[in-house]
């Protein structure tokens, strides 16, 4: 029991700490993403119509010579 109690205590502590950092980073970054999303949708910049896969800064670069 002692092992499992320590193990779950440590799991809870470490996960909670990581979660605190994740919430802080995601809340700030998410707000910026949200503004960008609304700007894009309100501008209606969908050249390809439904499901336009327009590239973004998050995309990986295209393969060389493509």
């Amino acid at each position, binding site marked *: 029991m002692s092992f499992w109690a320590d193990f779950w*205590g440590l799991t809870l502590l470490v996960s909670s700490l990581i979660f605190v950092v994740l919430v802080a980073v995601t*809340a700030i970054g998410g707000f910026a993403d949200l503004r960008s999303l609304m700007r894009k949708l309100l501008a209606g910049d969908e050249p390809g119509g439904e499901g336009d896969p327009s*590239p973004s800064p998050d995309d990986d670069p295209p393969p060389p010579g493509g």
Partner: protein
Amino acid sequence: MNLEFVSHFSAVDWTIVVAYLALTVGIGIWANRAIRSMSDYLVAGRSVRSFLGIATMVGSELGLVTVMYASQKGFTGGFAAFHIGLVAGIVTLIVGFTGFIVVPLRRLGVMTIPEYYEIRFGRGVRVLGGLLLAVAGILNMGMFLKAGALFVSGLTGLGDTNTIQWIMTALIALVLLYTILGGMVSVVITDYLQFVVLSIGMLIACGLAFRELGWTELVEGVNAIHGESGFNPLHTEGFGPSYIVWQIFTAGLVSCAIWQTAVMRACSAESTSVVRKLYMFSSIGFLIRFLLPQFLGICALVYFCRDPQVRETLFPGGVPSGDPAVKDWTLQAMPVFLGQILPVGLLGLIASGMLAAFMSTHDSYLLCWASVLSEDVVHPAYRTLTGKSLTMKTRLFLSRTLIVVIGAFLLFWSLWYPLGSDLWDYMAISGAIYFTGAFALLVLGLYWKRASRAGAIGALLSGLLAIAGLDPVRKELELPPWITSTHVGLATTAQALILMIALSLLVPDRPIPLLPIDGAEPEGNDS
């Protein structure tokens, strides 16, 4: 039943709740301005980037219902229940690293899983798979209202059933309003808000609960009530190995890579690289969405069992009570506990976050199942029968009408169905009607070229056997007690895989090329 407690919930808390909900709904309705196409409505124009994707994915999954069923598991299982969150987090991380299932799906550019069925196995499989998915999904969310009602009455101390039912009906009406108008855009915005408020609220609540009880009392309390099985998940008197395997599959793989609402997030992502990031970072959310509520459930267990009379009511003779009213109360224990320990103001904030989470989960799920029915059942069936497509306006109208119809069904089902088991176990087995077959179709369809249409139909239909895992059906079939819903779920999964392989080998297809459709990601984006 000696389980009546006075909550500290006050008029100040009600004011906070009303103001917060009005703000959330207002923003959701405002999002209607951004809807210009079906893609905007269902997947927010596929423009959701990493941080927002993580926030909404965790926000959508960290709902009131999740908090309720996870805290009930902590209450009934002790610390050993933490294994559910641990496997959920680890499996989501592995999916993020490998891109297993979700990256090929995003690359194909599908909006729903049945859409993938059509590309891979033909339109008939899409219609059948869509129908099963919607039925399982709607049944799966059938207990959400009940959980919400128990939360409201537990936290606020409201005992009048009529008042609670009116509150829940009003909340559903608000959700319907802004989901119908704003689609995925409003879902994304409200999920983001809810993620921020609920995450901070949960962390504070856990801190206060910990301060109230302390680690030593928690460990000793769980040991006194559950013994070794309250810590060791492998212990046969507690969860046991077969339950852990079932959780690796359901809480792990299904929740993040097969369940339609989670896959919709992957489909909404800008690119496959965003999908991977989304899953890697969301893994901590998938872990914590179980861990924190389970911790609150454990705190509630130890807190209430300080009173020997309460303990005897919950565990007469040292074993869990079989009384259905006591079983329902285990679901309510966490909010009742919060109503006891949280101060005025914070109680209102937590209630706001939780109710917003309740609405957020409903909007995601309502939109999801309505879009599956309209896009994967009605529209393809109409195309097959008439040779023509429905206009975008008609499809939007259909989706919105279906949202209302599903909402009305949920009101009826949550009042009628006797739960009889832990909420999480009900959800896993009702979802299994869909995901046992879907697992076979996704894994074998994406990674095994010889998977055929006949195999797909066999696997999908075999998933229906999971109904035998639902408590009333098990009683009707007079299954022996050692055959649990876990065993039914695992057996159905294995059967779907075997059937799909066998039928694919016996009845092969002519080769069908995997052609990307509208919204597919261009080559080279995930190099």
